[in-house]
């Protein structure tokens, strides 16, 4: 579990020893140059982040996660004993721009490695271009099936992929609730829609019917027709495949329509911490659930450091950390562990090693890659807002402590104890 620490400390010692030996050798041969401070050449990593456009909120969090990781990694010996230097470019949430960015990193800047962008939509073209130039694409925020289904061998996702994300909740639902109609509404995003669809497929088999199933395109801005349809279905359980802005809008529309489902789970939005509570109003958050691959309070390697470092750098508290931060951090962690094990900056060797079934650790838990690059060792959690606090409630019987799940949401605007 602490391979990375030992590895980097050892290599740092190795470098220092090597430097000392060479200095002695030079002195002996009389070629010693005074003031020879040979700083090790940094390891450059190119990353495209969405600092504007549809994904700008998450894009910034992604960048924060990578930056924190670099700071942390450099405090633990860097990679191969060399300091990590990150290069960022903004892709404005555009799939064509992300290709241009990675192409520039690889062919012009000649970075040693690249790490993934935010979202499945951008990771897919990014991994294509990385593949063309034989670079590995390690990422933590691109888990839609389309990323893995193309037979590329260079893409590796350290987080749980879309197929698994809502299934934890679906399994619990099937095990504890009577089969009943469920309202589904989802954006046709390549990550979010599969999340909802896989859960729905599971629930359909277990006898839960579909009260309503609406898919909306990404550019929708007026959600009242969709919200009205969900509200009109009268379903007591609603599963929404939303990104933050539409999630917040739909909740608002539900409040206006006075529709209050007993259980409400969103694909994302409630995991955005302070953004969520501000947009929706803290008193309206009670009982809302969201899947997440990370527990803020966990003891997984690097997590406590990451949280402390984040709060020190960006302020806020543990509950305001966006879920993208650990996803980015984890990608960096795995990269460092793997490269240190491989011992060189060769992307080809790195790819082979990542596919070898090796196990890695991260702030999100264990990581092990299946043949298509998915993390087969991941187990997503489900979180719920209870009394203004963001607590894990599922899975039951797992290694982490969870709170009891609230199965009946109170009326809008009422949060017990607030």
């Amino acid at each position, binding site marked *: 579990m602490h391979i990375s620490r030992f590895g980097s400390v050892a290599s740092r010692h190795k470098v220092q020893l090597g430097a000392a030996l060479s200095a002695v050798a030079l002195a002996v041969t009389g070629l010693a140059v005074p003031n020879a401070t040979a700083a090790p050449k940094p390891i450059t990593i190119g990353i495209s982040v969405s600092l504007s456009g549809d994904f700008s909120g998450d894009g910034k969090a992604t960048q924060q996660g990578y930056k924190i990781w670099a700071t942390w990694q450099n405090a633990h010996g860097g990679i191969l004993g060399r300091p990590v230097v990150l290069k960022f470019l903004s*892709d404005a949430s555009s799939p064509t721009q992300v290709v241009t960015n990675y*192409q520039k990193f690889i062919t012009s800047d000649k970075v040693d490695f690249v790490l993934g962008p935010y979202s499945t939509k951008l990771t897919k073209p990014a991994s294509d271009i990385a593949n063309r130039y034989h670079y590995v694409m390690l990422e933590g925020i691109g888990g839609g099936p389309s990323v893995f289904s193309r037979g590329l061998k260079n893409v590796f996702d350290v987080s749980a992929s879309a197929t698994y994300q809502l299934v934890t909740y679906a399994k619990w639902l099937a095990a504890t609730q009577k089969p009943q109609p469920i309202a589904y509404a989802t954006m046709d995003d390549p990550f979010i829609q599969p999340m909802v669809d896989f859960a729905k497929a599971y629930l359909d088999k277990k006898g839960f019917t579909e009260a309503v199933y609406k898919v909306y395109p990404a550019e929708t801005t007026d959600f009242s027709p969709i919200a009205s349809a969900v509200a009109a279905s009268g379903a007591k359980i609603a599963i929404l495949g939303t990104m933050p802005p539409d999630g917040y809008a739909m909740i608002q529309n539900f409040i206006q329509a006075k529709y209050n489902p007993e259980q409400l789970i969103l694909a994302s939005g409630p995991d955005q911490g302070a953004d969520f509570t501000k947009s929706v109003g803290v008193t309206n958050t009670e009982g809302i659930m969201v899947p997440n691959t990370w527990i803020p309070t966990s003891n997984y390697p690097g997590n406590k450091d990451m949280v402390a470092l984040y709060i020190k750098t960006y302020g806020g508290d543990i509950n305001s950390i966006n879920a993208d931060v650990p996803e980015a951090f984890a990608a960096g962690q795995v990269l460092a562990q793997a490269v240190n094990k491989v011992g060189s900056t060769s992307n080809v060797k790195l790819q082979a090693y990542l596919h070898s079934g090796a196990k890695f650790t991260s702030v999100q838990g264990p990581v092990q890659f299946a043949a298509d690059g998915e993390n087969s060792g991941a187990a997503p959690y489900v979180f719920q807002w209870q009394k203004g606090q963001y607590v894990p409630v599922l899975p039951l019987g797992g290694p982490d402590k969870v709170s009891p799940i609230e199965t009946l949401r109170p009326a809008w605007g009422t949060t017990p104890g607030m």
Partner: protein
Amino acid sequence: MSTDTTISQRPTPPSYEVPKAIRFGALAVGFLVLVLFPLVFNNPTISTIGVFAMIFLMAVTGWNIFSGYTGYIALGHAVFFGIGQYATAMLASYWQIPPGWETFLLIPVSMFLAGLAAIPIGLIVLRVRKHTFIVLTIALMFIFQLFAYNLRGWTGGSQGLEVSQPPWDGSIFNLPYYYVGLFLAIIAIVTSFMIRRSKFGLSLLAIRDDEDRARSLGINTRNSKLTAFVISAIFLGAAGCMYAMFVGSVYPQFSFDPAFDLELSIMAFAGGLGTILGPSLGALIISGAQQYFLITFGGANVFLIVYGALFILILRLLPGGVVPAISDKWRSHVVRKEQRILDSELEGPAEAGAHK
């Protein structure tokens, strides 16, 4: 500066046009530069700029054939760009075309489909006069964008479609696209040239200058406009096909993008709307600058400001564009030269007389 004959005794008046020799020379140099460009600058990031420049070149030249010559500014031509992209993506997967050289065969297919689509579209939008026309083309583009988002079964919705990329090595990947693009761009320019010099072209220009009078002179304005519309759509379809193949993914908001038409019009205006080479020049300069900007700074948003400001400046200062500005400069240069000769002739004998 002495001449045997005075100006008034010259047999023919001086030509105010840029001499054929210079024009031909400039064209030849330009052609050579374009052909050798990616071989000299073999960094793939730079040749990518070149590929996009070629795509825009053919698109703008095609756009100019309609909007420049007839004066009907079409701000919805992204429709045909998008049709080219989606046709390519859908057919590539439906016909199971293996990634590689065979995909390029889709270019004539996309051109044909775009042209075909232009016929009913043209018949609808060309019924109305200029203001309504402009707005209608924009509305049409949004309709297509909405269809692309909503006909999820065919178009993949927000997730878009993919065109498999050939497994060529990174260092030479861009070259085939560049040269095919160059070839198509040259065809577009030649077509534009031939139209301009033909009777058909004259009828288009007549429509631009005064449509009612053109009709009264017997020109079938409806057919002329429709023909120009279809021809321009064909080149936009080609551009769309190249774009889809090169970029590898097709999305509704980039295939049917209002900003795309803005880019086309600014390139055409900057270079010289209605001229033959003007739009090409504009395309090369502006798309090159845009790509460079995007590569260096990432994100298109600052460039929107630059576009907007640049466009306003161009509209105010160089409403004709670069090429007409060059012709104007040349004309005034010739006029001044003639003026000097005339002055010296008038003064000369008097001077000579004074110094006798």
